């Protein structure tokens, strides 16, 4: 049997040890927890800009010319326009596509345009003939600037502000 004192010391000692464990784990990952100050994907607050003036220069640039509509410039659907909302757009011959391309060289689900932040990205969905952004074939999702042609089969589309 132990004395009362040792027992109490061990009891509280173990609780303290448990919390040392928790605190040291949190300490080890605090670099991850401070992600907000390093990560510049969001819009910086006024206070952050005051502290770090470089943030201000970066932020407004892309939003200046936010694309508002999609225009088909070549191909069977030439002249069609589509207003861009906040939801992704499926391009292809399939009936469920947002823009149904009547183009023999397009796949059923050919490519996808989706907004992220203030920019639009295009991503090829494994099409047979590929998707070309400004002349180069897509291998991954890439941001689309207004006025840059996107070629799908015989169809060329553009984003316009």
């Amino acid at each position, binding site marked *: 049997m*132990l004395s009362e004192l040792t027992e109490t010391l*061990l*009891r509280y000692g*173990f*609780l303290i*040890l448990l919390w040392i464990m928790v605190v*040291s784990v949190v300490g080890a990952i605090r670099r991850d927890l401070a992600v907000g100050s390093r990560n510049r994907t969001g819009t910086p607050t006024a206070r952050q800009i005051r502290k770090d003036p470089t943030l201000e220069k970066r932020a407004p640039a892309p939003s200046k010319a936010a694309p508002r509509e999609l225009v088909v410039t070549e191909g069977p659907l030439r002249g069609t326009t589509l207003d861009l909302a906040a939801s992704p757009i499926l391009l292809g011959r399939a009936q469920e*596509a947002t823009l149904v391309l009547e183009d023999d060289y397009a796949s059923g689900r050919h490519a*996808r345009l989706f907004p992220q932040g203030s920019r639009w990205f295009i991503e090829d969905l494994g099409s047979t003939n590929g998707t070309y952004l400004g002349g180069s074939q897509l291998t991954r999702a890439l941001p689309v600037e207004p006025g840059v042609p996107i070629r799908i089969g015989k169809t060329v589309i553009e984003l316009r502000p």
Partner: protein
Amino acid sequence: MSDVLTVPKPRRNIEALLLLVALLVGVGANMIVGLDEDRAFDSDFWVQGGTLMALVVIFHIVLRFRAKYADPVILPIVTALNGIGLAMIHRLDITNGDDAADKQLLWSTVAVAAGIAVLFVIKDHRILRRYTYISLIVSAILLLLPLTPLGLTINGARIWINVGIGTFQPGEIAKITLAIFFAGYLSTNRDLILLAGRKVGPLQLPRMQDLGPMLAAWLVSIGVLVFQRDLGSSILFFGLFMAMIYVATSRVSWVLIGLGLIAAGGFVALQLFSHVEQRIHGWLNAFDPEVYNGTGGSYQVVQGLFGLASGGLTGTGLGQGRPDLVTFANSDMIIAALGEELGLIGIFAIVLMYVLLVSRGFRAALGTKDGFGKLLACGLSFTIAVQCFVVIGGVTRLIPLTGLTTPFMSAGGSSLLANWIIVALLLLISEAARRPAPTGPLATDMVPAMSESRSGASARARRSPKEGVE
């Protein structure tokens, strides 16, 4: 699904340091447990402490070689939890004259070995994507096994099978294979599910054919509830699917449909099956003397609550309480036993360790670049979170008590095995997330594999999932 950049550093030394603290917690608990009976440094203590230490040190060394950039806090947290669980089972053994701790230790060894095997065999989690549909078949077989003549009914639930040397719960492994299937299926078909369907008000409803997998998951959960009489696993499987489809599509409509299906299934089960109704009745009227004394009544959960109450804020101290009065104190009710002897302060530390573990899993999901890995990490961490919620919620009478195990702590080999495999997979995914991207000129055939950020990955990427450059 956003990507957050991390600074690539192995951080294995931090892991070693944290492991030291974790082992101090686990082995220290085991020492205090026996102290009152003057059995503090007997052979049990040395065998258990020594084995635990050897196991995690080996795991740590394997990580240094196989997954250098893996998350440094996952292994220490799991070690601490496993150690505390072992100590509590040992403590109950001393009172009850049982040998559950030795079995648990044996299973810990098997589980850690399985985790190490996963690290060696898989190396890159994207390989698992090839086995999407095989995982589905394996899950179905695992879930059906207990219903075959191999199955055993223990305490009313038919979720065990007899494997000669002992019993095994195939459902524990099924949660991993189901997570792999859901991750593979959803990362491939995400776009279709996302873009198709009618819009009703603020909700975009999915098409009927896209509802198929959800209905399948629902039927599996209902089947588990009806034929295996296991409410906990049923909640776990359906919750896992709901969480993963929500993560994949970020559509609230799926969650609403899922909740509707749960409500419908739950209502029908309540009307048709006496064991479900009995559970709910025992939960709502737990303190009714009739329910308390009845067979299959609320004796267990109410004793657990009494135990938690007598523990108070700081607990009675390890080895000082009477957690042995609760039935199944070392498996279903281990949280009550720990709450009694460590008090609210101790149990909060344990809950926080689970929170940190789950958050590291989600962090790995945020960091990794492929959609499959993101979904798999989310699904696996979510199973741990749901298990904790269902168990701790059941013990504290927030929800009806169900038979799920507390991850890493409950006495029970299959659960331990499954959870260590989950940890190994999370470590692999976190390794992929934190490993520095290879610099210098890239070989062209590597580009698709690296840019496989979403679904619709090219076939080339699937054929060569390794990045090749270390």
